């Protein structure tokens, strides 16, 4: 039977010759992930599964990234709970402050996921690793506990929506604009329970960071996973990051797709999602009337080195608009170091930005950039729900790092085209 890439990986993980959409399976897991919000719940649940220890201490990643460095006493206690469990179980992939980064930037960077893997994470943006040709999906804490206990998870095999990409981006356009455009097209439940597979010649023109950003936001269309085919760029990335030997699965030419949507990358423009749903998309150039108070550049969606470089190209030699606060958050320690060596921090600080330690902090309204009533923020994060970054009457506008940086300079939502580069 012809199968899609997602179906092939799930069949492999379930030890079955084939699977079909709708089938319920038990799959073996290559990695189980949790953070400082979701792991404590899983750790409390763990004894109920009746196992003395975790299934494989090398296949669990505990990444306290949301409220670290500890934002308050309760957060500190949650982190202490994760730290104690990691120590007791001898978890090899526990990351303490000083080594920790935002989980979905950190795991690929550390080579902890490879093509063909099956991964669950107690964080909805676990779908990010689909960029590496893995099946990877977000689950809750009980699933995480089960995964830690027996190394398996139950799945309903999803049907696949194929996005066939052609052409390449114009200047100032990135993976973020592509995924926001797609969500605007199909809606926040447009891929509910489905796999989103990105294919076609256009894929090869996307950088790995673009692919991470696109796969990362598959969940914002309701998808179970987002997935990219494995090409030379993927293999090079996996090799450079010391990942395990890739297991390459490709969709059969006659595989059945629920739907195919063709997208010409050259037609994508800088795009912004207005409050309060990621599907509420507009062209960045139409945002001149929207004055802003804050800009956040970072997160699991857009806190990678190329994101910071893109922001720096806009910010170089410029100043943040009066009355605007601009917060920049490199996603991992390695990215932080590379950005520093490249001189990006000079550009940011001279422009009037603040540069933070890696943390999810402001994206989910934790800390490090909470919004007051009536404030507006252009953010490179992934959700603009009511109250997500602070007060219930604050507003979030989702955008790419270039749009965010251009908006920080202008003080309103701006197309990077309008701002350009200063030499």
């Amino acid at each position: 039977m012809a199968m899609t890439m997602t179906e092939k990986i799930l069949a492999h993980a379930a030890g079955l010759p084939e699977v079909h959409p709708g089938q319920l399976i038990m799959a073996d897991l290559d990695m189980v992930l949790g953070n400082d919000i979701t792991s404590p719940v899983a750790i409390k649940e763990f004894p109920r599964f009746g196992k003395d220890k975790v299934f494989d201490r090398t296949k669990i990643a505990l990444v306290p990234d949301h409220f670290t460095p500890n934002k308050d006493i309760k957060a500190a206690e949650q982190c202490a709970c994760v730290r104690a469990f990691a120590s007791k179980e001898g978890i090899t992939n526990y990351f303490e402050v000083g080594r920790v980064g935002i989980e979905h930037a950190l795991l690929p960077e550390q080579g902890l996921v490879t093509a063909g893997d099956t991964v669950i994470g107690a964080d909805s943006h676990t779908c990010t690793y689909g960029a590496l040709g893995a099946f990877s999906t977000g689950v809750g804490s009980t699933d995480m506990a089960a995964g830690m206990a027996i190394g398996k998870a139950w799945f309903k095999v999803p049907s696949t929506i194929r996005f066939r990409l052609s052409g390449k981006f114009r200047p100032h356009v990135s993976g973020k604009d592509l995924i926001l455009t797609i969500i605007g097209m199909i809606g926040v439940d447009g891929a509910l329970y489905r796999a989103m597979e990105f294919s076609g010649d256009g894929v090869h023109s996307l950088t790995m960071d673009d692919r991470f950003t696109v796969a990362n936001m598959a969940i914002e269309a309701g998808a179970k996973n987002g997935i990219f085919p494995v090409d030379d760029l993927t293999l090079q990335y996996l090799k450079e990051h010391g990942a395990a030997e890739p297991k390459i699965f490709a969709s059969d030419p006659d595989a059945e797709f629920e739907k195919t949507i063709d997208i010409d990358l050259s037609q994508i423009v800088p795009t912004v999602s207005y409050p309060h749903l990621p599907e509420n998309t507009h062209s960045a150039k139409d945002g001149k009337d929207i004055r802003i108070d804050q800009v956040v550049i970072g997160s699991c969606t857009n806190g990678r080195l190329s994101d910071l470089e893109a922001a720096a190209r806009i910010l170089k030699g410029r100043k943040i608009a009066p009355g605007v606060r601009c917060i920049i958050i490199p996603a991992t320690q390695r990215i932080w170091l590379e950005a520093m060596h490249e001189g990006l921090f000079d550009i940011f600080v001279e422009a009037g930005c603040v540069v933070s330690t890696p943390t999810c902090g402001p994206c989910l309204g934790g800390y490090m950039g909470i919004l007051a009533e009536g404030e507006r923020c252009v953010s490179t994060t992934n959700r603009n729900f009511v109250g997500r970054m602070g007060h219930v009457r604050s507003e979030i506008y989702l955008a790419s790092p270039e749009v965010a940086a251009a908006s920080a300079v202008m003080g309103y939502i701006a197309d990077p085209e309008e701002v350009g580069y200063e030499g």
Partner: protein
Amino acid sequence: MKAEGRVFRYGDNVDTDVIIPARYLNTSDRKELASHCMEDLDSTFVKRVSAGDIIVAGRNFGCGSSREHAPIAIKESGVSCVIASTFARIFFRNSINIGLPILECPEASAEIAEGDKVSIDFSTGVIHDETTGKEYKAEPFPPFMQRLIEAGGLAEYIKENF
């Protein structure tokens, strides 16, 4: 198993950030989570809800974050069932895994009004709106999920089977 209660009605795309805002995720204490349930969507919910009450919502209920704190907060607040046209997938599996009853039923989701008195028979999937007298039938769960629910959740199911 049966449920009976008054209906709290909400719209489409109720996300987990409004069900339990992240500012309260520095704890996993169930009672504390329940005390902030639905806070950013309906600040009066916690004061008004009583044991057995039912949430009826539109499409894509529970979208967004994977936080299991969301179905935990709803269950702990006393809600006996959430009926929606569709559920976001992580919320769906979290609810099954922790034993919060949920039903997908577009017709019931469209017609049942705020404050209606509703009873549900989970063995048949029949939803009875006692205020209007109308009856609806929800899709039954596939056998695997029924076994999971009958075992009392994922932990018990795995303990018995693995």
